[in-house]
């Protein structure tokens, strides 16, 4: 019964989203205030229905109602409660429901807190948002109904893919979706602005926090996914340039560009149509990501449902959303007036450079991801574009981005002073050269590229901190004066420093861990000692372990350094009862400067066990840095101008009338 209520609530949500997608939009055009007013309550009630639906599915998973096909296919009565709940979104249908839940939640948020938005803009934004929701709700109800019954109900479920039974992955999809769907807000605002023909500072001030929040969530989501790959897949890798990973990385790159260009619109009124275009592209890439993952076009079949009907639906939806909005862009964008002028060497110029490079980088990732598909479509040839392509294209594009990110914040708006910026960054420059030199001299087998990478990472951290010190007049003014400045500095400035430094730390983690890792793959026998990266791993044997729904073999390694015991590491190889799939649980021991990483494999039948042992310097900096970037975003979100909100715009009579750029 509860399951049917969930299904029914979903249908009602669809009906409401049709209302919300049409009436307010028409009302805003025809100036019927009562139609415009429909948007807010409907958005809130629609969220309510989707929430009921989501709760019903969660209930079915928690009580293990195997008469629901989705539960029977993806859950198992022996699963721990956490994974029963995460099983709700661990499958195609449920993840769509989560997507719509977040989408309507954001819509409801705009309805509740958007009191200071002009009613017509708000109505249009909510309508566009609802039209996106309509597409997803239709998709779910027509091709992927999560509430489909199964008769007769099986005695037990098929179980979640054991690889996915993991806390890191339980929370990976919700964060990714918060990111993807968050960009839908930027998209809705962009389309609403195109319909109105008006992009101004108030608009940018509304779009930026949404973009920022979405970006933070996406950053965390990608970091969680990469962390999961690192410790669960058992290869010690953290990024594979896999199409599914790229699918989340492309919106991140475009979103990062959007984040920066929205500042220019807000502060200087320039780059408007570019910002609108980026908002459209960022969300389109989120949709494309969904298409690639859900249609099975790129990944070969087996991971996800590959009902071709679903692929056709998502593609049609993508064409409607992206094609439609880009058509609107082609018609309306030329009417948007340009903003303030600026010299090439200026804050705007630096942000334009950032945008050009980030979008190019995004395009190269897109090309690399879709190239096998293009080739297949044209010649029928099957290829796979591997990491070599991405290393050769993506990495060189990132070098100038990082280098410029150090300078950018020190540039003044309109006209900057490169020499002045250089002189104010001299401490950072000297420090960077010192680190590069030290790496060259002291690090064993340092390739020049690795030295360059280390220097870039160091530079970004040092430059971000110098810029902050510069603003606070640290060591130049009295401590009291610096403290006063520190208290009055906008939080957005702190956010930027933290996020830039975080990016530098990610780079350092990637470069150092990849260049200087030590790896041993060998068969070990009880009592064997393997020296790695200054540590000694001694194999003590294996024991059998029984988990709640799996059996495991656990290897035991004593790790010591110069004879002093450091840790006991216990990697596991698990076989889940519901499938014959084996998963590896790597044992990871973080030390201050490195990770020790051990994986136990299969026995060789002669008393030995295959083992993989790694020493990875600074590898945890990758995720530490990513978390710092997200924290930087959150700090920036708490900035006063977001809390206070945008000033009201004067009512404008004509649609084509644009407001003047506002100096901030």
């Amino acid at each position: 019964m509860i399951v049917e209520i969930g299904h029914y609530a979903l249908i009602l949500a669809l009906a409401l989203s049709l209302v919300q997608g049409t009436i307010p939009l028409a009302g805003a055009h025809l100036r019927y205030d009562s139609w415009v007013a429909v948007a807010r309550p409907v958005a809130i009630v629609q969220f309510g229905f989707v929430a009921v639906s989501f709760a019903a599915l969660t209930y079915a998973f928690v009580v293990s109602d195997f008469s629901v096909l989705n539960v029977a296919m993806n859950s198992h009565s022996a699963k721990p409660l956490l994974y029963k709940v995460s099983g709700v979104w661990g499958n195609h249908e449920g993840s769509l429901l989560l997507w719509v839940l977040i989408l309507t939640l954001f819509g409801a948020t705009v309805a509740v807190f958007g009191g200071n938005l002009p009613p017509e803009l708000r109505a249009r934004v909510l309508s566009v948002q609802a039209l996106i929701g309509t597409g997803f709700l239709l998709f779910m109800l027509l091709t992927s109904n999560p509430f489909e019954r199964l008769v007769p109900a099986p005695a037990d479920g098929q179980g979640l893919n054991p690889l996915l039974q993991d806390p890191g992955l339980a929370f990976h999809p919700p964060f990714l979706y918060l990111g993807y769907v968050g960009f839908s807000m930027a998209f809705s605002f962009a389309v609403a602005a195109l319909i109105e023909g008006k992009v101004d500072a108030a608009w940018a001030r509304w779009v930026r926090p949404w973009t920022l929040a979405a970006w933070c969530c996406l950053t965390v989501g990608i970091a969680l996914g990469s962390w999961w790959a690192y410790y669960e897949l058992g290869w010690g890798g953290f990024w594979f340039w896999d199409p599914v990973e790229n699918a989340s990385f492309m919106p991140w790159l475009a979103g990062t560009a959007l984040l920066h260009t929205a500042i220019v619109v807000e502060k200087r009124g320039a780059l408007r149509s570019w910002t609108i275009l980026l908002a459209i592209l960022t969300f389109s890439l989120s949709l494309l990501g969904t298409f690639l993952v859900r249609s099975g076009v790129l990944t070969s079949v087996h991971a996800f449902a590959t009902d071709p009907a679903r692929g056709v639906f998502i593609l049609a939806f993508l064409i409607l959303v992206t094609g439609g909005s880009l058509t609107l862009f082609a018609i309306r964008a030329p009417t948007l007036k340009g903003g303030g002028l600026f010299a090439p060497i200026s804050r705007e110029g630096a942000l334009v450079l950032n945008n050009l490079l980030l979008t190019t980088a995004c395009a190269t990732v897109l090309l690399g991801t879709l190239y096998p598909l293009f080739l297949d479509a044209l010649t029928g040839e099957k290829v796979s574009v591997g990491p070599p392509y991405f290393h050769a294209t993506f990495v060189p594009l990132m070098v100038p981005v990082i280098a410029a990110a150090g300078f950018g914040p020190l540039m003044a708006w309109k006209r900057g002073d490169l020499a002045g910026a250089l002189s104010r960054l001299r401490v950072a420059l000297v420090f960077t050269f010192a680190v590069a030199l030290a790496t060259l001299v002291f690090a064993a087998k340092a390739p020049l590229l690795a030295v360059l990478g280390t220097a870039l990472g160091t530079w970004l951290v040092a430059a971000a901190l110098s810029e902050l010190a510069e603003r606070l007049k640290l060591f130049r003014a009295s401590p009291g004066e610096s403290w006063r400045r520190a208290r009055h500095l906008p939080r957005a400035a702190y956010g930027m420093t933290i996020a830039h430094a975080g990016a530098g730390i990610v780079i350092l983690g990637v470069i150092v861990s990849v260049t200087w890792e030590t790896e041993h793959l060998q068969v070990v026998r009880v009592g064997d000692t393997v020296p790695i990266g200054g540590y000694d791993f001694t194999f003590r044997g294996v024991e059998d372990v029984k988990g709640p729904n799996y059996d495991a073999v656990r290897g035991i390694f004593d790790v010591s350094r110069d004879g002093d015991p450091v840790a006991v590491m216990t990697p596991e190889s698990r076989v889940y009862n519901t499938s014959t799939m084996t998963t590896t649980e790597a044992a990871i021991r973080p030390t201050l400067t490195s990770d020790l990483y051990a994986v136990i494999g299969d026995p060789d039948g002669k008393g030995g066990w295959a083992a993989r042992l790694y020493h990875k310097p600074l590898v945890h900096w990758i995720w530490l840095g990513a978390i710092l970037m997200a924290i930087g975003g959150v700090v920036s979100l708490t900035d006063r101008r977001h809390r206070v909100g945008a000033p009201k715009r004067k009512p404008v009579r004509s649609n084509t009338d644009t407001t003047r750029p506002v100096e901030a």
Partner: protein
Amino acid sequence: MRLTHILPLVLFAVVALALGIGLTLNPRIIPSALIDKPIPEFTLPPVDGRPNGLAASDLRTGEVAIVNIFASWCGPCRVEHPLLMEIARSGEVPVHGINYKDLPRNAVAWLKQYGDPYQRVGSDRDGHVSIDWGVYGVPETFVIDREGRIAYKHVGPIMRDDLDNKILKKVRELQGK
């Protein structure tokens, strides 16, 4: 309208077109290098607790046959299973199975629970024979012609449309009906 403003739309149209073509190509036709080639030599023992193993000679009897690669741990196999049962009930063409990297007791329990459409099932515990068949993963389904050659390969779960318009169509064509 200026060119620069139309450019994104044009680029997107190209991408969308490729995606559309990709959708029709993939993943149902991952080309099998083995199409129209004789089936590989193999002999697989029966699944413990079930009679009739599967060997290459069983597929060279002058009869068209279907070989389905399945496993009890495979979710999509559960999806296509009713359609395999349907073929078996119709008696139109014999269905054989290769049980891929599975525990025999799980496989037998699975066939008891959902029904057993297979005449013969070979147990491929380590998956080596399936590699010879060019199997990417489970489920996959092959149509074998009268001379024991692979005539058609379907990757992923069989949907109603695949069964009626591709697999059975191919079978009937080969049977000369």
